[in-house]
């Protein structure tokens, strides 16, 4: 396993992650359309594929307006944070054997830390906007992401116990015999739900809730700053989908096809699932969201952790 030059792999990961995120704009609209018996964007280029280009040209040409009442430095910083934290998480993501920017031995912890830092982006955006809707959105984001982060971490400890390592490539290697989704099914479900909440997508999009809060924390954003939130969200979806693939579905492991292909197949499967969930489910009330997180998901994660720990001890 010879690793390519670090700069090359960093560039590769950044370019691939960002182009997948941009491509997801089209994928999501086409898939949503499919499930709503429509076509979606199919005019620009073959199958509407150039819609991505048209959208990005549009968003770059828009006026990047900073309202006079905002806290300017924080206002500018906030969209950068979401972008940077998500991109940092991609650094520890093992795409295929040897294709990884940095195989940290605490990769999983690094991923959790980075996704926690992502909360700052949303909270600071809501705070610096000086707008009551943005602030409410930011508050909701803080509450939601903190409470879902707790059992997100706990749901992954089962995987760590089974693999005996925090390093993501070791976790993938440990799934040679059986994917962790089988012994860790509750953990998988918990992580899936926490991941949805983490990316602030539709069943958990209370921070932006356009029917209640205009656009929540990014109400005041326009132009490419709004685009950063947008792309950051799609990169988050890509990240969580890849994480599910790596942690529970054996990452690059799979017969016949090369590892890279398997990884992307699994990733796109979960991206499509995320879109399907968006197409199907309504947004819960905020107190329902919180009581779900603390009263159902957290105890379940703890029970799962105890049971896994007991099983691992018993087998030793």
């Amino acid at each position, binding site marked *: 396993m010879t690793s390519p030059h670090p700069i090359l792999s960093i560039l590769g990961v950044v370019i691939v992650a960002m182009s997948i995120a941009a491509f997801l704009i089209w994928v999501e609209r086409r898939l949503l359309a499919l*499930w709503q018996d429509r076509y979606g964007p199919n005019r620009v280029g073959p199958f509407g594929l150039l819609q991505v280009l048209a959208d990005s040209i549009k968003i770059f040409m828009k006026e990047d307006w900073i309202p006079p009442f905002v806290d300017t430095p924080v206002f500018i910083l906030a969209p950068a944070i979401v972008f940077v934290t998500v991109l940092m998480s991609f650094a520890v993501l093992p795409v295929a054997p040897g294709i990884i920017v940095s195989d940290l031995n605490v990769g999983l912890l690094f991923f959790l830390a980075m996704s926690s830092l992502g909360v700052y982006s949303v909270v600071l955006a809501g705070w610096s906007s000086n707008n009551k809707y943005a602030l409410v959105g930011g508050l909701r984001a803080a509450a939601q992401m903190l409470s879902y982060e707790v059992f997100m971490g706990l749901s992954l400890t089962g995987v760590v116990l089974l693999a005996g390592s925090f390093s993501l490539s070791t976790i993938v290697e440990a799934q040679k015999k059986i994917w962790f989704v089988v012994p860790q099914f509750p953990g998988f479900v918990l992580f899936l739900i926490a991941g949805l909440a983490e990316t602030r997508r539709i069943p958990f999009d209370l921070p932006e809730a356009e029917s209640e809060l205009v656009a929540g924390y990014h109400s005041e954003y326009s132009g490419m700053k709004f685009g950063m939130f947008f792309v950051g969200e799609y990169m988050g979806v890509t990240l969580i989908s890849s994480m599910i693939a790596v942690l529970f579905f054996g990452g690059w492991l799979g017969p016949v096809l090369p590892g890279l292909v398997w990884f992307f197949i699994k990733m796109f499967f979960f991206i499509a699932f995320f879109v399907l969930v968006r197409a199907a489910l309504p947004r819960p009330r905020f107190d329902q969201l919180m009581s779900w997180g603390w009263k159902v998901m957290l105890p379940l994660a703890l029970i799962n952790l105890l049971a896994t720990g007991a099983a691992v001890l018993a087998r030793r």
Partner: protein
Amino acid sequence: MLSILRTIWYVFLHSFQKRITVQYPEQKPYLAPRFRGRIILSRDPDGGERCVACNLCAVACPVGCIALQATEDEKGRRYPEFFRINFSRCIFCGYCEEACPTYAIQLTPDFEMGEFHRKNLVYEKEDLLIDGPGKYPGYNFWRIAGVKIGGKDKGEAAHEDAPVDVHTLLP
């Protein structure tokens, strides 16, 4: 919990359903005969203008997009000197067609009238008049109405008796 999974499954089943979108410019939609689209002015079976410039359409129009000026020809037939519809205001409600006593103004199943300049949406009488009778092929207002015009005296209209001579005592 189960209902959430069921919802997701039912939405997924939509992947195998026919899409309802009509791919418009390539695939034309079916427009019903009574579709309310572009407004036209029709003619009698024998080629005369049906419009008698009574102004009822202009009065009925909720957005006031119809403007016309009545005048009379040498035979005593009323007709519009000009007849103007501003389609940039028209809401295609069809009230003008309902108000018209002579079936002159009619809405047609055609909506493709996009323009780059607003001015081009103001249609004059030449643009509105068509050569045929539209939806009412046999109808001729001046043949039925009891009004006297050149070439048709009182009592000569269809289904009309000769006028009663009120000065005679005979039954």
